[in-house]
């Protein structure tokens, strides 16, 4: 949409269409409210300016009828907006099953992206059109915020945890990606682009990257290199939980709580194991923070997610 004077952003994802409709409805309501206030103000100002002969007799004395009327009216309108907005919010922030999962690492001042096939890119994200893409995001330093205006999706990327967001682009093209949380000197240039390609173009793009090891394979290498396998392998002598089939299950912790084993949980196991222990195991899992980068953690996560043996973990 390269008008000389742009009025409206691109609408290039199913998410965007839904948010757009809500936005238009709210603009409409805003217009009605403004028109009411301006209309009343103008009418009264013209009719009752000092010099006007209009009668001032019988001024409204009991005001509470009116006040209750507009309290109820505004409250009703607001509740509609609230419910509508909350519904869409839940839909936006609870990712459906994804066709592809990409990993995003934010750092001052760039976006590093890893595809499941092991392809990496910086400040660019290639995705296929009409596919549900899930992004798992981590920050290596301060808080950033991942925002694609044309998709109307945004989520802060907070260090110390993982955030998940999804979208389904429905138009091919190049769209702006930016950071909307002030993150230091070059915050303004922490931008990039999302290239939405047709399925065939995307497949070609993936092979053109000339990568041989998928993320899972890279993760497996990290898993061995850091000695995870020494404790977590099936035939290990150390009393450590098997990681096979872990992803997506509910884990019982020592303190009695139950945790969903999602990406953020696995990350915490690796970088912050001191804060909790899996029920029935000794707290000997080493703390790998400072040794394993957020990028490597993503590879480990991809690997652990891929461990879907027939055998259920013993807990």
């Amino acid at each position: 949409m390269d008008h000389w004077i742009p009025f409206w952003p691109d609408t290039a994802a199913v998410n965007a269409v839904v948010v757009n409709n809500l936005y238009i409805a709210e603009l409409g309501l805003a217009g009605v409210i403004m028109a009411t206030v301006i209309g009343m103000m103008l009418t009264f100002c013209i009719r009752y300016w000092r010099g006007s002969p209009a009668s001032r007799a019988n001024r409204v004395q009991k005001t509470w009828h009116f006040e209750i009327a507009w309290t109820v009216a505004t409250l009703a309108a607001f509740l509609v907006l609230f419910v509508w907005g909350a519904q869409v919010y839940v839909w936006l922030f609870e990712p459906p099953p994804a066709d592809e999962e990409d990993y995003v690492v934010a750092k001052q001042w760039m976006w590093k992206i890893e595809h499941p096939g092991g392809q990496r890119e910086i400040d660019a994200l290639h995705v296929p059109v009409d596919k549900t893409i899930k992004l798992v995001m981590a920050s290596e330093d301060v808080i950033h915020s991942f925002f694609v205006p044309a998709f109307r999706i945004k989520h802060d990327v907070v260090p110390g945890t993982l955030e998940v967001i999804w979208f389904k682009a429905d138009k091919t093209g190049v769209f702006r990606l930016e950071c909307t949380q002030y993150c230091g000197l070059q915050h303004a240039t922490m931008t990039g682009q999302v290239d939405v390609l047709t399925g065939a173009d995307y497949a070609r793009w993936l092979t053109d990257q000339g990568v041989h090891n998928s993320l899972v394979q890279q993760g497996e290498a990290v898993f061995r290199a850091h000695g995870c396998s020494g404790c977590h392998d099936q035939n290990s002598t150390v009393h450590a939980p098997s990681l096979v089939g872990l992803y997506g299950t509910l884990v019982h912790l020592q303190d009695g709580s139950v945790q969903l084993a999602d990406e953020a949980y696995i990350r915490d196991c690796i970088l912050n194991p001191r804060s909790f222990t899996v029920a029935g195991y000794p707290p000997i899992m080493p703390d790998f923070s400072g040794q394993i980068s957020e990028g490597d953690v993503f590879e480990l996560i991809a690997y652990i997610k891929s461990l879907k043996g027939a055998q259920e973990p013993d807990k």
Partner: protein
Amino acid sequence: MSVTTVERAASVEPPARSQPSYLTSGNTIASWLLTRDHKRIALLFLASITFYFFIGGIAATLMRLNLATPQGLLQPAVYNRMFTMHGIIMVWFFLIPSIPTTFGNFFVPLMIGARDLAFPRVNLASWYVFNLSGLVVLYALIMGGADTGWTFYTPLSTVYANGYVFAAAMAVFINGFSSIMTSLNFIVTIHRMRAPGMTWMRLPLFVWAIYAVSIVMLTATPVLAMDTFLLAVERFIGVGLFDPNHGGDPLLWQHMFWFYSHPAVYIMILPAMGVVSELIPCFARRPIFGYSGMTIALMSLAILSFFVWAHHMFVAGISIYAGIVFSLMTFFVAVPSAIKVFNWTVSLHKGSIVFDAPMLYALGFVLLFTVGGVTGLMLATLAVDVDLHGTYFVIAHFHYIMVGATVSAFFGALHYWWPKITGRLYPEMWARFAAILTYVGFNLTFFPQFILGYLGMARRSYTYPAVWQSWNLLSSAGASILAVAYVLPLLYLGWSLFRGLKATANPWGATGLEWTISSPPPKHNFERTPVVVTEPYCYDPERHTFVTQEGVLHDE
């Protein structure tokens, strides 16, 4: 309305002056700097905050200058420091103290018929603490400024930023004590020192607003002190409070910061609402529509303002359910605001409206506040906030409230009470011109930012894609008009100090007690304690009369 004792006034003129005014009694520097007179302290505050308003304004001018073109003029580091200092100075050194410390200080005692505030020494101390914090913020600014944004988000502010973050945070820390002292003073004064007959339901709405805001200030500001203290602890000692690398939680900062800073938004707007509730009945020459509804709305805003803080965090990774609760609360807080807008507007119905400068500012306030309000509704809607958060839409929204509304009310108050404060009339035509110019300049500056926000322009960016230049250029052009509109009153008001016509006691024909004494008021305010017999705003547009709160009937 029930006017119990109505005596007809012999003349609108006040009784012959028996004592010198507060301005002329004592002319030494010490008599000003050590004064315990609330009126003089109000003027000291007025001088201080005007100074900071222009410092903050210069930073804003540089920012808009930079954004006129995508390439910009300033170094990124300079731009980042400019918006940080602009935010810190405008919020804590202008907006929060603006109306309470000046007009509140000057007029709350006069409006309730008291000789002074409850604790005159605390009042003076508040000004010194304010200036101490001001010196610290100037130090931070001159040494190079901080570059964190006024929100000091962690871990950027505690671990990564290398500007004068500590000094800036300490300035905010110290500044808070000034707020606490001033608000405590108001609460005690309004509770204990009302003249006989000045019941709660006869208080002018401005006094109600100052009361509501004082409660918010007194309860919220200590949290700010804790916040900035913990920030300093982490920045200096490296205790892991907010830094995840040391086991801290970055979101904890946001919760703590907004727990203060959302109520702070109401600290900035409530006094402005109070001012406008004085101006509209006076210039529409009729009672305010729904007095008790207005007081209920003020108090519910004050209370609800404490339960909406996480609406600043809808995309920060709080739980979805927390998001839903805070969105609902935010819609609730919008209801009393909506009631106020309707009541102000309907207060024009069957009035006898004069369009003097204070009224123009007041009408501007209502319109700009409404724009800020309806866009606030959009931001309260969860899914829409996901898109708009962190963009220029938010910038436009809160400037409509905090500049469009609050600063308009501030100027409205300044013009309305100028004759009382100085004893001089200002030139009406110039003032009307400035009021209209403010309105035009303001909309030109900030309306384009709504569009930029929806297009996706991120706030706190020193550069942007070239396609967005037209709107940015328009905004910068508007800002230059706005700058003129803000400097203009300085000139003609300054002129009026020397050349303006002498003001009578009650040039607007207003009903408040502050208008029953001479202009400028005598040192000890009231010769005898006034007795209040009626509610405020007894204007009669039919007979062109009004009754002061002392029950004296005047013809216009």
